[in-house]
């Protein structure tokens, strides 16, 4: 009987993992000794970083989507379905459409994160976002109509995808309004939950003078408790208020309810051993990408590198070898510092990134990567 590897989720982590496994275990799959199944409830794979560019009218939402089947190796069995229950004792998945469900020998959860603006009163009605296709399109239209007033970017969710994106947004907005001759009529404020401009000290040290030079106000220790969309005011846990004309928020994030219901993690993220990515609460279960509760960013690069590690570990497992591959926390993030300059950071667990001066070349590299991302998803890059 073949050994069944099942991946739940068709985002970056799930897709890279499926393709890496198909490549590493091609012989075993062709011989019928191993099967690799991906279960996802979206026929499309979505590359979310495109949405930031959608907000500034530089890309279209359609650029972020491709059919997941086109990206997957033919050896991967794709099931478009929603997993609605996980029995980690019986090693069985309950599905919405498939009445029999799916049995697994090795399960990888790559269910990702979603924004939860509903967790903050008034945020749904009062704020824009650029983390969803609809949100990015609405923000694009709002920015196009915004010719003056107070633009506020507020990081509401302490845990959120792409921790560089809030800084990127205000730096791009500054440049974008300057190019359109409107910057003198637009005040920009950036708010952050802790006492500096970014969670990583070296990024905060780099960003603080840049924000000052660009005349972007910074409010720290600012945690929105509620938004009053009629008064256009944000009220914080710290007891302060801030008025806005256009509010862009990074809302709280949530993992999939499935994780909580399966007893794999209280808040939708799966606690894992941070180097092997094995779930702490169940045998033969891994989590990667935004789903994994590891002490680094919820970012595509993390999902990508974690997928490579889990592919190596699973390949060793099914061959009866001792897995040795480990995730060292490698994270790589581009940081756009305007409409035509960028920098990037690279770090691992316990290390501070070294900041590099922004350049046009790094910006072009980011744009090129946005095109070549699909090779990453295919497991080639």
């Amino acid at each position, binding site marked *: 009987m073949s050994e069944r590897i099942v991946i739940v989720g068709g985002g970056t982590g799930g897709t890279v993992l499926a393709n890496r496994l198909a490549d590493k275990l091609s012989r075993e799959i062709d011989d019928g000794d191993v099967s690799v199944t991906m279960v996802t409830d979206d026929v499309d794979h979505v590359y979310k970083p495109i949405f930031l560019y959608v907000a500034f009218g530089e890309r279209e939402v359609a650029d972020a989507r491709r059919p997941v089947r086109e990206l997957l190796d033919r050896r991967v069995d794709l099931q478009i379905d929603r997993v609605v229950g996980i029995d980690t004792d019986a090693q069985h998945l309950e599905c919405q459409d498939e009445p029999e469900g799916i049995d697994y020998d090795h399960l990888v959860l790559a269910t990702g994160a979603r924004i939860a603006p509903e967790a903050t009163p008034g945020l749904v009605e009062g704020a824009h976002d650029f983390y969803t296709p609809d949100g990015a399109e609405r923000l694009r239209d709002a920015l196009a109509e915004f010719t003056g007033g107070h633009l506020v970017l507020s990081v509401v969710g302490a845990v959120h995808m792409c921790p560089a994106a809030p800084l990127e947004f205000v730096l791009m907005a500054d440049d974008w309004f300057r190019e359109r001759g409107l910057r003198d009529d637009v005040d920009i404020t950036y708010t952050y939950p802790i006492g500096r401009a970014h969670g*990583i000290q070296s990024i905060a040290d780099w960003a603080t003078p840049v924000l000052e030079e660009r005349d972007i106000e910074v409010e720290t220790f600012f945690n929105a408790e509620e938004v009053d969309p009629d008064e256009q005011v944000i009220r914080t846990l710290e007891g302060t208020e801030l008025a806005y004309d256009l509010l862009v928020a990074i809302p709280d994030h949530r993992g999939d309810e499935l994780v909580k219901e399966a007893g794999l993690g209280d808040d939708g993220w799966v606690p894992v051993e941070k180097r092997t990515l094995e779930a702490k609460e169940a045998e033969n279960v891994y989590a990667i990408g935004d789903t994994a509760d590891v002490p*680094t960013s919820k970012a595509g690069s993390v999902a990508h590198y974690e997928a490579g590690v889990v592919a190596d570990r699973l390949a060793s497992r099914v061959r009866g070898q001792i897995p040795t591959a480990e995730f060292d926390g490698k*994270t790589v993030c581009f940081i756009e510092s305007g409409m035509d300059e960028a920098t990037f950071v690279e770090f691992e667990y316990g290390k501070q990134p070294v900041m590099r001066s922004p350049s046009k070349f790094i910006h072009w590299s980011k744009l090129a990567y946005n095109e070549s991302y699909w090779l990453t998803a295919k497991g080639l890059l």
Partner: protein
Amino acid sequence: MSEEIQADVVVDSRGATCPGPLMDLIGKIKTADSGTVLELQTEDRGSKKDVPEWLDKAGHELLDVVDQGDYWSLYVRKS
């Protein structure tokens, strides 16, 4: 004294790079009930300064800071 504090929620931020221990704590505190005791485990020396500073602003209580050898435990009660 500190050994008697029983945390309802443990936030393990040892080795945390991004977004860091205080951000992890804020994320947990926001979804915790009033009165919940949280233990933040951190290797970041800066947490001993920035966590109390934020707790003071947000009105939560710092119960104790315990040196565990290779990390610190900061015990916090949500107001």
